[in-house]
């Protein structure tokens, strides 16, 4: 069953007096549990596509069906709720709130959803434990290594048990070893059923995915499928 369906998606930007077609007639179907990488040079539209799938951006035209629901017609507020429940983000620069402890950072999406303290506490503990961060729970981000920070960010992205995990250059700010470590974690999550979408310009990283999209000039230029 497809978790994500994109139908004739266009995304135009006005730059000066020119219209740039960041996404040009994208048709894509992603099944639940898929592992997809989106590759391409900068400006090819891969980040725009990820933002669109993550409901941070709206298509100029076309339809986006997420979990069977047309989300293009949702209001800002409804999109925010959907984002909170269905989508997890992992960013290149981690985006941890520096003044909050690791546990508090992981807790943020649950807080925003208005979940009770008791319910939150056990979920946060579980998420931290799954990423071997239990002993780092009270550390501030600046007391953690890059790999640990990204693991906190993954804990935060998965604590809501989202259907889709979107990772934008998740290893871009990490050394090779931590990068492989993080990819291993993401892939393990995918093995347990989460739909994983990784945006990268790193071919080696992208080739780990079962489905590989190559984008160019706002279009899906090539798609490779493993097995």
């Amino acid at each position: 069953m497809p978790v994500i369906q994109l139908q004739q998606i266009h995304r135009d930007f006005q730059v000066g007096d020119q219209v740039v077609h960041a996404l040009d007639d994208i048709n894509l179907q992603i099944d639940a549990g898929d592992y997809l990488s989106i590759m391409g040079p900068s400006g090819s539209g891969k980040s725009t596509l990820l933002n669109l799938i993550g409901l941070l951006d709206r298509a100029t035209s076309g339809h986006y069906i997420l979990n069977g629901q047309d989300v293009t017609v949702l209001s800002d507020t409804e999109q925010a709720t959907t984002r909170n429940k269905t989508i997890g983000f992992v960013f290149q620069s981690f985006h941890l709130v520096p003044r909050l402890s690791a546990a508090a950072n992981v807790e943020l999406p649950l807080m925003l959803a208005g979940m009770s303290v008791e319910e939150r506490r056990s979920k946060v503990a579980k998420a931290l434990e799954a990423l071997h961060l239990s002993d780092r729970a009270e550390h501030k981000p600046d007391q953690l290594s890059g790999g640990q920070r990204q693991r906190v960010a993954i804990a935060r992205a998965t604590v809501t048990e989202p259907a889709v995990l979107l990772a934008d250059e998740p290893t871009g700010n990490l050394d090779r070893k931590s990068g492989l470590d993080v990819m291993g974690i993401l892939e393990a999550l995918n093995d347990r059923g989460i739909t994983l979408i990784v945006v990268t310009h790193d071919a080696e990283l992208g080739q780990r995915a079962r489905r590989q999209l190559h984008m160019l000039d706002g279009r899906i230029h090539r798609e490779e499928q493993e097995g």
Partner: protein
Amino acid sequence: MRTRDFLGLTFSSIVAHRLRSALTALGIAVGIAAVILLTSIGEGIHRFVLQEFTQFGTTLVAINPGKATTAGTSMGVFGTERPLSIEDAEALRRLPFVRAVVPFVQGNAEVEADNRRRRVAVYGAGPQMPEAFSMAVRSGRFLPADDPTAPRAFAVLGSKLRQELFGDANPLGKRITIGGSRYRVIGVMESKGTVLGFDLDDTVYIPAARALSLFNRDSLFEIDVMYREEVDVDTVVAGIKRTLTARHGKEDYTVTTQQQMLDVLGSILNVLTFAVAAIGGISLLVGAIGIVTIMSIAVNERTSEIGLLRALGARRSQVLNLFLGEAIVLAAIGGVSGLGLGIGIAWLLHTAMPSLPVHTPLLYVVLAEALAVSIGLIAGVAPAQRAARLDPIEALRAE
């Protein structure tokens, strides 16, 4: 989002920038302290003045010659107004509700005793003055109940005048000259201090009829009527008007009750308190600008955090509330500190200068804190709206 979490997040960012938050709150604190201090002094003066007025008792009615009127024509058109005379005062004394009647004339004259001279205020009064104005005689006695139209030449000295003229010597029975006429000192008043700028101790009291001839006047300044507490003030006013109008043929005098005087005085003093609070408000404005500045900086600094919150599913309204909440909490903290500061200084002032009246009503405290919170709200709106309107993608890109 739960209120507790909301406050937790708000406080975490305020605590993260302790110094900056403290300085911003200080701006509001200074403003609130100024408002509280100035209104405390204003209110203190208000109460002080009213107290000065009511120390003479509240069952007083004053009658002055001439009709205070707001209808266009002057009384002069219908002929001259009749003076308020000693006989008028005596007629009022016969009214059933009257406890005391004091005819009143005031002027300045030179008082001479032995070889000492002093120019002082001379009050022509009646024998019931101590009763009506709650004044006490220290030694001797007050003016006796002589024939009001031909009283004997007795004088009662204020405590300061007695000191100036006689030093430590006993003045009772001594002869003094007031404006060229000779009087015998029969009493000295207890010190009354200064009331609304008039030194009631540097003065001499003589019978009203003698004061009239001394100052060559045919009308009293005022007749003060003290009435029985159980009688309604309207009855008193009506009774006085009936008697005087019968004697004068028309209402060519003005009756003012103590309550009317207090009302007028109270409204003047309220304006004073308000004006003084407005001056303090200017420093609050400066504090508000501080909050706008610091919140604008905070939105800039935390742009990527705003992007993150939005990616994690925060609604625009939640982002708005977070930043608005921060501004309000900053202002509220400043407000509470300012209240402490203002009340503390007011208390110190009162301790250091007991004569300076200071009073801080609880209502003002509550209003001042509400004012601080409103300032936070107003100052926070623009930065918070900017935060809420940020495009999440742009915001995430900011570092």
